[in-house]
């Protein structure tokens, strides 16, 4: 009977491990969280978790901040992205493998305030970098761009 209970506990632990899987690694990280103030989170595979300095960011991740939140991320090609309060950004594409000819960075600023400093991908293939918003497509040819997307 006690053994059965232990098996249930083990199964439960395994299950909780599986449930947290969507926030585990999917290939190489695109970058890391460097700065967090107030409420900030990472959305991955439909799950939103609080962001902490040092957390890995992957392609397709969403970055979110609350009323007093701020979030700063540095990607592996040196691109820096930061969000002010009440902001929402999706990292739609991040490819940084020049040797394989794979280069691309697409970011969606859905609402709020964002700052962007371009990195190596813009230097190597300027046309492969763009920031999309509900109303525009911004082609960044270097280096420092700020965007406010004022939507209710």
């Amino acid at each position: 009977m006690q053994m059965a209970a232990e098996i249930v506990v083990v199964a439960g632990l395994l299950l909780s491990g599986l449930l947290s899987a969507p926030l585990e690694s999917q290939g190489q990280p695109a970058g890391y969280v460097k700065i967090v103030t107030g409420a900030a989170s990472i959305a991955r595979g439909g799950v939103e978790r609080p962001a902490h300095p040092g957390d890995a960011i992957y392609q397709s991740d969403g970055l979110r901040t609350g009323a007093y939140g701020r979030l700063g991320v540095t990607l592996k090609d040196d691109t820096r992205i930061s969000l002010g309060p009440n902001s929402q950004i999706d990292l739609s594409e991040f490819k940084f493998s020049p040797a394989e000819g794979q280069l691309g960075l697409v970011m969606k600023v859905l609402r709020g305030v964002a700052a962007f400093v371009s990195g190596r991908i813009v230097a190597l293939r300027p046309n492969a970098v763009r920031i999309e918003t509900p109303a525009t497509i911004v082609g960044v040819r270097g280096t420092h761009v700020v965007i406010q997307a004022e939507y209710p």
Partner: protein
Amino acid sequence: MMRRAGAALALVFAAACQCHVRIVQPATPTPHEIVALLKDPETDTVGRAVVSSTSGGSVELTHTREATRIVVGQPPRAPFRLSQDQIDQLFGEALAALPPAPRHFHLYFDAGSNQLTPASEKLIPEILVFVRNRSVPDVTVVGHTDTTGAARDNIELARSWATTIRDRLVAAGLDSSLVSVASHGEADLLVPTPDDTPNSRNRRVDVSVR
């Protein structure tokens, strides 16, 4: 009579009240976007951004604090200049969360050997100190070759150089969990050259600390 006057008065009040409410209520801002170009925070150079409306029309930003305003379904407005105060007011919160600039260290080997040049050897302890002073560091070690030889062979060669440097850094005390290794072969030159050009500056390992 009294009743009618009362009703009229009530109507006046209602109208006045509605008017009052309208004045007090903050005007809901029209959904819009502002895109601005700023000078690079480290080099002070000004880049370029092309802002294209999803419904047609585009403007180019080429000066610092130059901006455009866009409403969904309309072309971007002609560029205008924002003051530094307006930049701080609109974008200050996001700018305050911009991470520190990454720093790059270029390491070179003595020709045809696995020995670092004396100058590069001195950088190993410097890199460790720099990493220690960053609050949330991550480090990439990327190998690069010049354009002599086959591109495919150069990927492997540059990776072996990068692995050597990673091992040196870890042996010197760098936390290996912070480090990743990559190879860009001959696809990311420091000094642009045509194919099959020997160039000692391009044969390097780039350690970047973020």
